[in-house]
């Protein structure tokens, strides 16, 4: 065994890494986002995507949706550490493969292409709720909503069809059915 020269112990085996969606309800006040994001960077947690906006103007509440990866222990820590922040009201934690939760991301895609190509593009996007936001005779801007990997696939496949710009949001989440998360 290699002789350790460290005053610290060596890292032990890592558990299985899962993707989770963490939903955080916070007071919409100055620097609240940096408190949440700083917690992740300071403790070495991962952020894959982030979506944040005010959802309740009256009570001044924002909803932050964070896609993260980690071992079950790390995910538990993320939730507990978030709950300790003063402006945080509640924290939801969902596994990405949870069937009871809907995850969606939105993307705006701009293509510079001729009408026949545009037809093919619209066809390819059909499954992802395409909305045409702007169209000229040589360009089109389409909004789609889908899962992250689906958008990944679409953008990859449509590169040859004149995709010149893609703007994407982080994932947002909502539980199915009449239940409300508390």
């Amino acid at each position: 065994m290699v002789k350790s020269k460290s005053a610290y112990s060596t890292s032990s085996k890592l558990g299985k890494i899962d993707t989770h969606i963490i939903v955080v309800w916070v007071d919409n006040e100055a620097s609240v986002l940096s408190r949440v994001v700083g917690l992740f960077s300071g403790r070495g947690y991962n952020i894959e995507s982030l979506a944040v906006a005010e959802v309740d103007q009256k009570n001044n509440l924002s909803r932050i949706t964070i896609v993260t990866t980690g071992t079950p222990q790390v995910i538990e820590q993320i939730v507990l550490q978030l709950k300790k922040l003063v402006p945080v009201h509640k924290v939801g934690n969902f596994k990405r493969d949870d069937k009871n939760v809907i995850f969606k991301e939105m993307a705006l895609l701009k293509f510079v292409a001729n009408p026949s190509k545009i037809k093919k593009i619209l066809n390819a996007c059909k499954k992802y709720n395409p909305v045409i936001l702007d169209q000229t005779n040589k360009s089109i801007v389409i909004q789609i909503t889908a899962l992250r990997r689906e958008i990944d696939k679409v953008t990859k496949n449509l590169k040859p069809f004149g995709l010149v710009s893609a703007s994407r949001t982080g994932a947002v989440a909502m539980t199915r059915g009449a239940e409300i998360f508390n």
Partner: protein
Amino acid sequence: MPKLFSGAEIVFKCLEDQKVKHIFGYPGGAVLPIYDELKNHPTIKHILVRHEQGAGHAAEGYARSTGKPGVVLVTSGPGATNVVTALTDAYMDSVPLVCISGQVPTHLIGTDAFQECDTTGITRPCTKHNWLVKDINDLPRIMHEAFEVATTGRPGPVLVDIPKDIQFAKAKYFKPKKEKKLNGKVLNKFNQKEIDELVDLMKKASKPVFYTGGGVINSGPKASELLRELVALTRFPITSTLQGLGAYPGDDNQFLGMLGMHGTYEANNAMHDCDLLINIGARFDDRITGKIDEFSPKSKKVHIDIDPSSINKIVKVDLAIVGDVIDVIKSTTKTLKKKNLNLEKSNKQKISKWWQQIQKWRTKQSLNFINSDKIIKPQHAVQRLYELTKNQDTYITTEVGQHQMWAAQHYKFNKPNRWMTSGGLGTMGYGLPAAIGVQVAHPKKLVVDIAGEASILMTMQEISTAVQYNLPVKIFILNNQYMGMVRQWQELLHEKNYSESYSEALPDFVKLAEAYGCVGIRAEHPDELDEKIEEMINTDKPVIFDCHVDQAENCYPMIPSGKPHNQMLLGPKDQEANKITGKGKSLV
């Protein structure tokens, strides 16, 4: 029309309503309005430090020895950045601090104005919460909330950044609300079922051990009393972390001594071999656990903590009880008594074999060292200090390093709040300002900073504060002319390459003491040690005690890195007996 107060007045009205008696600070441009207001509030005494880090540590010493929050007042820019070390220290060791910092006027924020820095940005990761006051009308609420956040749940530091124009602006003042809204951050979430489960585990255990930490101290002196009752009732052995020392009497027979990297052989082996481990207010720090995979492999683990994020952070436990130590112990004792009236006797029998094993470990006498009649051994110096001060109510602070561990090993604490040391952050230079804070809170008590000559030089300037306010703190320097712990690691792990760990060009500490207007005492020979210590204790002035000790002494026992608790490296006596020479060291 209610009366309007300036921001500076509101700050002091809040401090008065929060029953603050002392603040530690240093003036500067951006806090001058607050300093100007000081004269109108005679119940609040300001202690002028010599460096803002000193203000922070002094407030920590004050807080830890009284259980009340320490208050710090600093200016913007360098004032705020200098206090960051102390805030981080308080954050790691869960010490309640309220730091008020001045800030440049609101219209200049973001313009790189003179002495501007992003104080709330810099201190965000080292405070429980912080506030930048942008509207004078928010100030009373924020000030009261600051005290509430600092002192409730797991305590910690907070910071309120007040721009200079806000200190001048006027607003109405509100007293703190009696029934505080706690935002769900105070957690006494345990229920009787969990207590029953704990009692059940205690009943079944044949090799139990209590592992207690700073949470017991933070829960208040009553928690220590209740802990003593619980330990006496169960007859279980008890070990403590560095921060927990004093919660249980250090000279009691059921106490195994401190555990962890420099803990006793019996404490660490008990942790390793136990079948029930009850953690009360400790956090499975890496200096305690050693190698996690092999940490206490055969035990059921119970964790009692007020901070839910401490549970399962490092060690997965079988039973978690989230709550204040006082309340959890109270319920546990009550339930134990209700279920088994003859507990003391029945337990004594059930765990007698366990105690026999512990006695066997004790015979190793792992804290032993080879004493000398020619040179002062540092452990001997601490032992003598203990013997000569144990008859009075003594408060001990330390710096960080070998002397800190020797103090923890050889000074026996009998009461909580008597031991102030930087554990989590390990801040050299903590002890002197902390001692000043302790002495401010307890002017008649004996306060000793057990120090090293390297650490003390980091905040040496604060001796001037001690002289100014007639605070007779005793700086007991174990002077080995090395950064001793660094030297020890270099000896054991880096082939004796003592890279930059020798303290070249040390000052003459006796002359230095005289220059500061206090008393310097030097001890160089074991024969004169007692007499000199007596002289120190009887001097009613700050004293710098320069105790020349063996330069080559190492701190044992020790758990080498990456090793479990039952593979300790013992002191020189044992090493000789077992012929562990060059090869033994490669274990480290």
